[in-house]
C-alpha cells in the first residue's frame, strides 16, 4: 500500500494526438479511492479519449497514468485492474446473461463453485436473477445496462469506467438508474470514473466533476463548487442556466466590489474575488434562481427595473425573460409557491417588474 499522500489515480501531464488533432492536452488530475468522479463536457472535448487511455485502449502521446501507485505505461487492457462499461453496453450477443457476467471470471484462478457464487452475487446485485438464462435480445435496454454493469463488476476491479452510462435510457428509467448506480457504488466501494455530456447527470452522480473543453480540463470541483463558484465563463455557461453581462470594477471595499453594469444602467454590489483591481473589465453572471422578481420595489441592495418579455409556466415554477434598461434580457426563475388564479404568478407578460439579487449571488468572472 502506498502512503496517505499518494492519490488512487494520478493523471500526469497526459496528452493525446491523433495525427495533427490534439484530443487531450496536458491533463493533470487526481482521483481518490472510492470516489465517483465525472468527466463532463460536450462532444469532442476529449473526455472519452481520456477514459480510453485509462482503460488502455489508447496510449498517451505524452504523460503518465498511475493507478494505485502503479505506472500504467505499456500495460495492455487485459492486464489492467480496470473495467469499463461501454456506452453501447457491448453485451456479447451470443451468450446468455449469466455467461456474459461470468466471462471475465474465466481468467481468474478460482473454483467453479466460487465462480458460480460470484455470478449469483452479481445477478442479485443488479436484480437480474430471474433473467440469468436469457439471451441479450430477450431483455430490455435497462436490463442490458445492468448486465453490462454486473459484468464489469464481477472481477472486482479497483476502478470502474462508465462511458455515458445513462445516455441510452429513457428519462424515467434514467433517474431510477442513477440512484441505483450510486447505491451499488456505495455497497461495492469501487472507484467510478464517469464520462458524461449531461450536466444534470454529473451533478447528481458525482463527488467531484472535471469540466473539459477542447482537450483541456477547465475546472475540477464538487458539484456545488462548479455550480456556485464557476472559474470561467465557459464553466458557468456549461453548467446550468446563467445570464452574463460585461461590467467594470469601480471600487473595492473589503470583500465587496462596486461594479458598473451598463446593461442594467447602474452600479451594483458584488462579492469580490481575490486578485481583483479597480477599473478591471469583468463579467458579472447571475443564476436565474438567485434573482428575485416582484411587482413592487423591494428593500434590497441591488435592485433593477425591467419589463417581462416572455414567460414559461411549468406549474411548480415559472421562467421569465425580462428586458433590462439597456435592452438586454435576463433569465429569472421563480417558484410558484402560492395557489390561486390571480396569485399563481408574481408577474405577467409586459408587466413592469423589480428584480433584486444579493451581492453574494453575483458571480464575478475574469476569464
Amino acid at each position, binding site marked *: 500500500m502506498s502512503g496517505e499522500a499518494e492519490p488512487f489515480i494520478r493523471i500526469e501531464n497526459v496528452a493525446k494526438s491523433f495525427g495533427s488533432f490534439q484530443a487531450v492536452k496536458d491533463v493533470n488530475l487526481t482521483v481518490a479511492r472510492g470516489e465517483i468522479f465525472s468527466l463532463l463536457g460536450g462532444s469532442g472535448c476529449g473526455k472519452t479519449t481520456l477514459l480510453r487511455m485509462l*482503460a*488502455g*485502449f489508447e496510449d498517451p502521446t505524452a504523460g503518465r497514468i498511475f493507478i494505485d501507485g502503479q505506472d500504467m505505461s505499456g500495460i*495492455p*487492457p*487485459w*492486464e489492467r485492474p*480496470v*473495467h*469499463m462499461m*461501454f*456506452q*453501447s453496453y*457491448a*453485451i*456479447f*450477443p*451470443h451468450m446468455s446473461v449469466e455467461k456474459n457476467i461470468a*466471462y*471475465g471470471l474465466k*481468467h*481468474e484462478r478460482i473454483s467453479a463453485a466460487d465462480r458460480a457464487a460470484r455470478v449469483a452475487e452479481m445477478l442479485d446485485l443488479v436484480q437480474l436473477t430471474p433473467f440469468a438464462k*436469457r*439471451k441479450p*435480445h*430477450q*431483455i*430490455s435496454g*435497462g*436490463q442490458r445496462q445492468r448486465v453490462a454493469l454486473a*459484468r*464489469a463488476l464481477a*472481477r472486482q476491479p479497483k476502478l470502474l469506467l462508465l462511458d455515458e452510462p445513462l445516455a441510452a435510457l429513457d428519462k424515467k428509467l434514467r433517474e431510477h438508474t442513477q440512484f441505483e448506480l450510486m447505491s451499488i457504488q456505495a455497497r461495492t466501494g469501487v472507484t467510478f470514473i464517469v464520462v458524461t455530456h449531461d450536466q444534470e447527470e454529473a451533478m447528481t452522480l458525482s463527488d467531484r466533476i472535471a469540466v473539459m473543453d477542447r482537450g483541456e480540463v477547465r475546472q475540477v470541483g464538487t458539484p456545488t463548487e462548479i455550480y456556485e463558484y464557476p472559474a470561467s465563463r465557459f464553466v458557468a455557461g456549461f453548467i446550468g442556466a446563467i445570464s452574463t453581462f460585461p461590467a467594470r470594477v469601480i471600487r473595492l471595499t473589503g470583500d465587496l466590489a462596486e461594479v458598473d453594469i451598463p446593461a442594467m444602467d447602474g452600479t451594483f454590489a458584488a462579492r469580490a474575488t481575490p486578485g481583483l483591481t479597480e477599473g478591471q473589465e469583468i463579467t458579472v453572471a447571475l443564476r436565474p434562481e438567485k434573482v428575485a422578481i416582484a411587482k413592487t420595489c423591494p428593500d434590497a441592495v441591488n435592485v433593477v427595473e425591467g419589463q417581462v418579455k416572455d414567460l414559461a409556466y411549468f406549474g411548480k415554477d415559472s421562467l421569465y425573460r425580462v428586458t433590462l434598461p439597456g435592452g438586454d434580457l435576463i433569465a429569472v426563475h421563480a417558484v410558484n409557491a402560492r395557489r390561486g388564479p390571480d396569485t399563481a404568478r408574481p408577474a405577467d407578460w409586459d408587466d413592469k417588474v423589480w428584480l433584486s439579487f444579493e451581492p453574494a449571488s453575483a458571480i464575478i468572472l475574469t476569464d
Partner: protein
Amino acid sequence: MTRRPVFLITVLCFGFAFFYIPILSMMVYSFNDSRLATVWGGFSTRWYASLFSNRQVGAALLLSVQIALISATMATILGAMAGIALARFRKFRGRTIFSGMVTAPLIMPEVITGISLLMFFIMLAQITGWPGQRGFTTITLAHITFSMVFVTTVVHARMSQMDRSIEEAAMDLGSRPWQVLKDVTLPVISPALVSGWLLAFTISLDDVVITSFTTGPGATTLPLLIWSKVKLGVTPDINALATLIVVTVGLCVALAGWLMSRAERRRLAEERLAYRAGG
C-alpha cells in the same frame, strides 16, 4: 380503387417464363421414354434407373463433393482472415491495393483465371517437380483461389456492421487478442462464415471453366462429365441428372429460407415480450 399495374405484371410473367420454362421442359423430358431427347415417346423412369447404375456418374459426383468440401473449408479460413484484416486494420500501407486485388477475381473473366492457373501449375511443376500430374489437388487449389473472394466479401460486410466495442469489452475483461477472436469475433460473425462456406461450396460444385483448365487425366468432376456428354448430344439421362440437381438445390434453398425466417420470427417475438415486460 387501386389500379393493377398491368405492365409490371406482364413483365413479371415473361421474366418467370423465360427462366422456368426451359427448366420445366428439361424436367418433363427426363421422364421421356424415347432415346431422342427432343421427341416425346411416352412416360418412363428408365433414365433415372440407368443413372443410378452408372458408375461414372457416381465417381464424378463423389469427386465434385470432395473437392467442394475441401476448397470451401480452405476458402472460408483464408477468406475470413482477409475479410477480418480488411475490416479491422483501418490503415495500412497498400490497403487500397490489397482490397482491390482481393476482389479482382470477382470481375476477372473465368477463362483468364483458368489459363493463368494452368500456366502457374505448369511452371511450378517445371521448377519444383510438383504437382507432377494435374487433377484433384490442382482443381482444389484453383477452386480455393476463386471462391475465397466471396467469403472475404461476406465476412468483410459482417465485420463492418459489428460493434467494435464488444471486442474491446472482452479485452477489457482480461482476454488476450486471440482469445477475443475465439470467444467473441468468430461466434458473432459465424452466420457470415456459414453463408460464405455455402457460397464457396456451390461455386466449386458447379464450376466448369476453371476446372477444365486445371484438371488432368482421370479427374472428372460432375459438371465436366455433363459437359463432355452434352457435347455428344443431349441424352435423357443428362436430363434426369439435371432434374435431380435442380430438385436438391431447390429443397436446400427452401429449407435454409424456412430456418432463417423461423429464427427471425422467434427473435422478434422474444424482443416484443422483453419490451412488454419492461424494466
